[in-house]
């Protein structure tokens, strides 16, 4: 729509100044204010982050009754707690009395009840108010009618999908199954890569602060035309150093195996393919990916066949999806068993949190590779991430320019693009970004009830 009617778009841009609802995504371009404007950021928190399904934690982090994990999502302090029934409930981490955060550790076990450290109000793990010291002093007032009487508030919607705990803060919004649809197949594939069909989170998250808008990081996850350019200094040097110093040895060091695919050509990334799903989700690496050619780890194939049989094992391990982006702020890499949560802090600040999983029942070497990939790619010390962050931060600087108001995401744009169906196309297309912004825009345009 936008390429054929450029004149019309220009009018729209002009009208942006006077329209109350400006067009921020025009089909192939994103308005720079989407990345820079603090007011748009606040609106996103309310319209996108409270109404989308957001990843909170993995059930393996809280295996036993009373185990909890605290976090902050969309500025809300939250705590996920394992109940004695085995269910996971999510509470707002706030005492209904004076507002004190009840649990302050990142994780732990609270026993059978929670106790506020300020005045010793206690709560069941389900949030229900259990006791107040000298409660009779509240008897003459209308405490029964107070909000505080209800205890710690529960988050409206929680879904445990194969041990991945998702929440939706708002009571209204798309149901979980509709919101994610077939995109859940990436999580399925990661789970099935375990011979026991079970994942376990390992260690703490690497947390890397970027001075940029969170959506730049999301865009980059399906940007297949940057690796060979932005990462030439790390991936290119890895190939060179290997050929200079170690040639003749049978197997390259793991770092070379992990880095060298970044130097693959545009043609390789084009052939990889890209798939999009309704509601802003998508993934790179449909038929092939930069994770396809890792060397075999002895014993893994056999352990998989034992569980799934040969045909199914081939299917599971043959699906080597590259990056799956879940709208709005999650990225999953099945073949490497890692997950990134892109946490918006402000319009110009983002924290990227990277978690890894062990495939239960798989040889330990699988975990070693996952650990090394995560350290090398996702750490604040990562020589690969340094160049990504540099690009985001330079974009934050460059976008201040009056030269243009628009960021271009039109590579392989096709007239009349629509987003209601699952679609596959050439891997170098920026269609997944357009799919993301189409969802973003439709949520931002919704009026609050």
């Amino acid at each position, binding site marked *: 729509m936008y390429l054929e009617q450029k004149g019309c778009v220009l009018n729209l841009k002009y009208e942006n100044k006077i329209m109350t609802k400006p067009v921020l995504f025009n089909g192939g371009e994103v308005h720079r204010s989407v990345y820079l404007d603090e007011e748009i950021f606040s609106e996103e928190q309310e319209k996108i982050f409270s109404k989308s399904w957001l990843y909170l934690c993995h059930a393996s982090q809280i295996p036993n009754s009373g185990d909890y994990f605290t976090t902050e999502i969309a500025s809300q302090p939250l705590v996920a707690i394992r109940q004695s029934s085995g269910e996971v409930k999510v509470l707002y981490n706030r005492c209904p009395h004076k507002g004190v955060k009840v649990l302050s550790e990142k994780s732990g076990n609270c026993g059978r009840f929670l106790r506020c450290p300020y005045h010793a109000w206690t709560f069941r793990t389900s949030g229900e108010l259990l006791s107040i010291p000298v409660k009779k002093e509240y008897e003459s007032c209308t405490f029964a009618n107070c909000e505080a009487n209800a205890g710690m508030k529960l988050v409206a919607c929680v879904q445990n999908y194969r041990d991945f705990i998702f929440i939706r803060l708002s009571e209204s919004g798309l149901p979980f199954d509709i919101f994610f649809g077939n995109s859940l197949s990436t999580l399925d594939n990661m789970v099935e890569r375990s011979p026991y069909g079970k994942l376990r989170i390992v*260690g703490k998250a690497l947390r*890397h602060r970027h001075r940029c808008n969170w959506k730049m990081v999301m865009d980059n996850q399906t940007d297949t035309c940057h690796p060979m350019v*932005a990462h*030439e*200094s790390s991936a290119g040097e890895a190939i060179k*150093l290997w050929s200079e110093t170690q040639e003749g040895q049978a197997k390259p060091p793991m*770092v070379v195996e992990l880095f060298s695919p970044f130097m693959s050509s545009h043609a390789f990334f084009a052939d990889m393919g890209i798939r999009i799903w309704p509601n802003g989700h998508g993934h790179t690496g449909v038929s092939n990916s930069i994770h396809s050619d890792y060397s075999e780890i002895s014993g893994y194939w056999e352990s998989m066949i034992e569980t799934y049989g040969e045909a199914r094992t081939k299917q599971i391990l043959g699906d080597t999806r590259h990056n799956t982006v879940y709208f709005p702020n999650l990225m999953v890499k099945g073949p490497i068993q890692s997950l990134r949560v892109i946490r918006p802090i402000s319009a110009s600040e983002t924290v990227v949190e990277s978690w890894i999983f062990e495939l239960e029942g798989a040889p330990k070497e699988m975990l070693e590779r996952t650990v090394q990939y995560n350290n090398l790619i996702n750490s604040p010390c990562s*020589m690969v991430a*340094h160049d990504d962050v540099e690009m985001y931060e330079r974009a934050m600087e460059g976008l201040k320019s009056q030269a243009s108001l628009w960021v271009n995401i039109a590579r392989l744009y096709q007239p009349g693009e629509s987003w209601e169906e699952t679609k596959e196309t050439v891997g170098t297309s920026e269609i997944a970004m357009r799919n993301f912004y189409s969802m973003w825009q439709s949520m931002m345009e919704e009026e609050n009830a």
Partner: protein
Amino acid sequence: MRNNIIHHLEDLVYLESKLLDEQRYEEWLGLLDDSFTSWIPLTHNQVDPLYEPSLLYEDRFITQLRIKRLNNSRSFSQQPRSRSQHLLQRPEIIIEENNSAANSLCQLIYTESRGEQEWSYAARLEHSFLLIGSNWKIVSKKTVLLSLGKPLDSLQLII
């Protein structure tokens, strides 16, 4: 004899920092044993670098790659380049019985700057050394940052 070793290893720790701050990486590599590993754990009491995430865990090959990358003309995050400054407390050297292996513990304030920005890190720096022939070599280096509870900005040079 033991005092000489202590003085020599103290000087070695100081020399290492100086070479790193002056970005004389080839000379620094000369101080490292072939089996060198460098580790920046992600948690304070982490014991396992292989099967748990770390901020950094690398062997000599990856360290060499890191240096090559810093010097690559398309190392975009090094345009402009970063600088660093190590501020060390006197290392505490512990020599093993046979006088051919030793460890050092040292308190460190490390500062990195780039363009208009500056970051400071308090850390505990642990070295282990081996006497190879007549030369003491650094076989491992572990840097435990004080602030592991907060998200970190890019840390680009060699701490």
